[in-house]
């Protein structure tokens, strides 16, 4: 089973945990229907679409409503600390959650109590908490954008909002920031840095870069980072080595964006619909290289 943990921007949405399907552009989980705009629903939709090509892995969602007050996130953290130890999950991705170091650490203990440690991916708020806790090394993959990479590289910042100006400065290259993130033990085993050029890296440096197709409008669109993390999750869940999964995910996300032919006003579902076509093409080209 592959599990995605995150929040939904609806304060009335209850805590649900179960299989996720995508029908007519809406997610279905635990008898609830969810629209797909951005955030964790976009990540989940990308996973489901990628699994149309990779095969069904049993996509599970652990979701709760939270509009930033953290009440839903805390409820979900509590549920996971109780239930993770008995869950049969091989890939676990954490996403839009209220960053909270204490709860983060309880989740890590719950994962340690699982019979087999799943491969762990973190993005968004949970990645912030993972970095702040000093336990980035527990994770297999972080998927920061350029601003979040600067946050990982700033050993003093507890949130991207406090990243110091000299680190945010554009003269710092992505390679510099990756080096600095690992120097201060703030990188996961692998990093997939989203940007004009996507970088896949580990503590030894950059492993791969992906720069095409270049679709400039994707930078402004909400959800393109979520779909990238979703595709990477599906590939890792299918058993692919993390750096290869990250590289293929970056190529696929760009190609799906290219096929959607977006403007900065395009909404993310148009890109998600193109994921199966893009992923099939990228995998085919990867096999022939």
């Amino acid at each position: 089973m592959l599990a995605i943990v995150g929040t939904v921007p609806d304060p009335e949405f209850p805590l649900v945990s179960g299989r996720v399907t995508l029908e007519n552009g809406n997610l279905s989980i635990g008898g609830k229907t969810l629209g797909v705009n951005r955030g964790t629903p976009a990540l989940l939709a990308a996973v489901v679409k990628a699994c149309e090509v990779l095969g069904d892995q049993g996509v599970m969602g652990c979701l709760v409503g939270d509009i930033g007050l953290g009440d839903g996130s805390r409820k979900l953290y509590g549920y996971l600390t109780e239930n993770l130890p008995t869950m049969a999950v091989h890939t676990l991705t954490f996403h839009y959650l209220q960053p909270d170091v204490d709860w983060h650490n309880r989740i890590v203990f719950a994962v340690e109590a699982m019979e087999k440690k799943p491969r762990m991916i973190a993005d968004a708020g949970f990645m912030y908490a993972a970095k702040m806790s000093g336990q980035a090394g527990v994770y297999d993959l972080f998927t920061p954008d350029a601003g979040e990479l600067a946050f990982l590289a700033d050993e003093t910042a507890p949130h991207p909002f406090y990243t110091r100006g000299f680190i945010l400065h554009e003269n710092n290259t992505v390679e510099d920031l990756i080096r600095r993130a690992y120097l201060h033990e703030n990188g996961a085993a692998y990093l997939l840095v989203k940007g004009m050029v996507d970088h896949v890296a580990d503590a030894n440096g950059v492993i791969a870069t992906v720069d095409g197709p270049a679709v400039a409008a994707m930078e402004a669109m909400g959800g393109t980072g979520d779909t990238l993390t979703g595709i990477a999750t599906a590939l890792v869940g299918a058993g692919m080595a993390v750096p290869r999964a990250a590289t293929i995910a970056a190529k696929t996300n760009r190609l799906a964006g290219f096929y959607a032919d977006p403007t900065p006003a395009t909404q993310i579902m148009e890109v998600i619909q193109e994921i199966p076509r893009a992923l099939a093409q990228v995998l085919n080209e990867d096999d022939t290289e």
Partner: protein
Amino acid sequence: MNTGSPLSGIDRLQQIALAFKRGLFRKKRKPSLEKTREDLGILVFENTSEVIQAERVLKAKGWKIRVMGPPPGIQSGCDLVIEFPLIEELHLWRLLDQAGIPPLKMVPVTAPLLKPVDLFQTKDFGDYLMVRAANMKLTVEKKSLRIVNVSGGGCPDVPYLAQMMVGKPLGEAPRPDTFGHTLCGYALELALQEMERQCLQ
């Protein structure tokens, strides 16, 4: 391609043990460049949402306060505090109490505070303009001044704010400083203010 090798259980335990030695998983933070002032204090609130409200109340009354990052001892992950002149503690406390947002506590500033990011980046897409503040991006269609996208961020109010703001014109869109609750929401408010400065003034 380097595929690396997974950590053994012993390695993971050693990592956790190391983290414990660091002080219950909390990293020691090096001081930032912000200087300490003995005549300043910070007001600590229940959550970021209350800090944002308190800032609005105090600034509306002309108080010269600053929203800053808390010192490491009271950081939990998504925090803001209000820095103020210590001598005005009683007055400010009374004002906030009357506004229904009493602080949890007041702490004298004894260590450097984290300074919020104040760099904006603007990108011109031709028909669209994008402003980035910290990890948040806001995009507007130049012709209609309509917000067409919100991206970036990682706190749960980002998707909530995005669904409220996208499609609305600048000046009429719901504001993150009213409906946001986190640092990402606060950064989005800064991006909105910068966009308004560039497009409406």
